[in-house]
């Protein structure tokens, strides 16, 4: 991203992409790494795969920690495999802001699919991506799409705007709720509920299912009426119960999107978000390069501290300087 993509493409990159298209899993793994690291090759990589994307159904799964997202994902992988689809999964866990490290443990619940060469699972840390986390995971989903995955599941915890944005960027967004997780308002903050295309009540053998369902119905009835009726489905993911219905509803939702013109509308909104994210990323990167330059980031911070400049002045001055 440090410079506009050059059109002179490294033959090694072309080879890597070709291997990925031919189904080499190690090539897919490496392409994801390049995107995640925002490597210099990333823009050229995206350019190479662009002609091959647009076929996969992106499914976002979000919900509170412990609601069973990974277990549900595992069951959905199995279900879609039964339906003959190739499945990719991006499972995102938070990076520690203190150390930059992360423990990525979602895979542990998806081990059953090991040995199936048409399932590819990648764990990812949030990292504080400059251009937005969703923009990065979207690119990863694009690579999976280009390399033949027909279903791409994006799983993130439903706390924090960045994480929610990942699931929101999918074609079909599933919100996972659980009965008995304390205050029902707590369980369904308005912002997260708004992005859901489907609501899953997982662990539905627990006490409080009826109450939660009633509550969710009530919340949905207050939302503006839309053509797509948001289904509330019950699952017991650990036992594989209700998973077929979830897959059915997700497929139905994709059909709805395509027939209603909503598909293009969402695609455009998503591209808009990503485009603005890329611009933010590029500007931030340029400014960060001026960290120690005279009149650069550190100098400007000192001036701010001494109140010789206010924030708006400082930001504009640095922005201008970064293009000199």
């Amino acid at each position, binding site marked *: 991203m440090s410079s506009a993509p050059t059109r002179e493409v*490294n033959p*090694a*990159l072309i080879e*890597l992409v070709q*291997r990925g298209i031919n*189904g*080499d*899993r*190690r*090539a897919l*793994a*490496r392409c*994801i*790494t*390049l995107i995640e*690291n925002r*490597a210099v*090759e990333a823009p050229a990589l995206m350019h190479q795969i662009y002609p091959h994307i647009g076929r996969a159904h992106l499914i976002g799964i979000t919900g509170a920690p412990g609601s069973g997202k990974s277990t549900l994902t595992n069951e959905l992988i199995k279900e879609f495999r039964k339906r003959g689809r190739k499945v990719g999964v991006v499972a995102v866990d938070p*990076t*520690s802001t*203190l*150390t*930059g*490290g*992360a*423990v*990525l*443990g979602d*895979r*542990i619940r998806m*081990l059953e699919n*090991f*040995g199936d060469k048409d399932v*590819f*699972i*990648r*764990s990812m*840390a949030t*990292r504080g991506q400059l251009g937005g986390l969703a923009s990065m995971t979207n690119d990863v989903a694009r690579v999976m799409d280009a390399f033949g995955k027909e279903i791409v599941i994006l799983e993130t915890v439903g706390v924090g705007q960045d994480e929610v944005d990942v699931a929101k960027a999918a074609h079909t967004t599933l919100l996972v709720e659980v009965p008995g997780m304390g205050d029902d308002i707590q369980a369904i903050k308005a912002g997260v509920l708004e992005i859901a295309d489907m609501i899953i009540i997982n662990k539905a053998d627990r006490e409080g299912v009826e109450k939660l369902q009633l509550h969710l119905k009530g919340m949905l009835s207050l939302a503006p009426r839309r053509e797509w009726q948001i289904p509330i489905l019950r699952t017991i993911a650990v036992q594989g119960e209700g998973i077929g219905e979830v897959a059915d509803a997700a497929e139905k939702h994709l059909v709805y999107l395509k027939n209603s013109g909503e598909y293009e509308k969402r695609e455009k909104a998503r591209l808009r978000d990503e485009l603005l994210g890329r611009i933010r990323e590029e500007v931030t990167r340029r400014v960060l390069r001026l960290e120690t330059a005279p009149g650069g980031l550190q100098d400007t911070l000192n001036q701010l501290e001494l109140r010789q400049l206010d924030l708006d002045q400082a930001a504009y001055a640095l922005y201008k300087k970064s293009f000199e």
Partner: protein
Amino acid sequence: MESGSQQSTQSAAQSATSSRNIRVLIAKPGLDGHDRGAKVVTRGLRDAGMEVIYTGLHQTPDMIVEAALQEDVDAIGLSILSGAHTVLFPRIMKLLGENGMDDVLVFAGGIIPPEEVEQIKALGIQAVFGPGTTIEETARFIRQNVRPAAGLSTGGVQ
């Protein structure tokens, strides 16, 4: 272990800003059910600024190598207390080789008799960390020996 991981938190915070994100898979091959050590290392390396993937107990060599492949990790830590390392480690190293993943740093921990360490290292496992190793030592070893940032080339043909 406590003080070790606290010290490493500080040095990690510095290195996290200056270096790339190192990805490590911590795996428990075989049938022993003792994963306290693996979990402590997982947590410790996280605090040292690394991204650690933990896949749980009872992993076969194929599962470990497949996870390492999909996650494109820079290093693999194998924790074993059952004594089956003489059987499982060679299998894991062979599979890594077959997949062209020779650039992945492999280290081991757990209960491995000192007289077998050389034999283990001859497989290409670069370090064996027994009980008493500090997290800082492990983290430093990984940082110093890990491959350079992942580039365009990957080995292996499927």
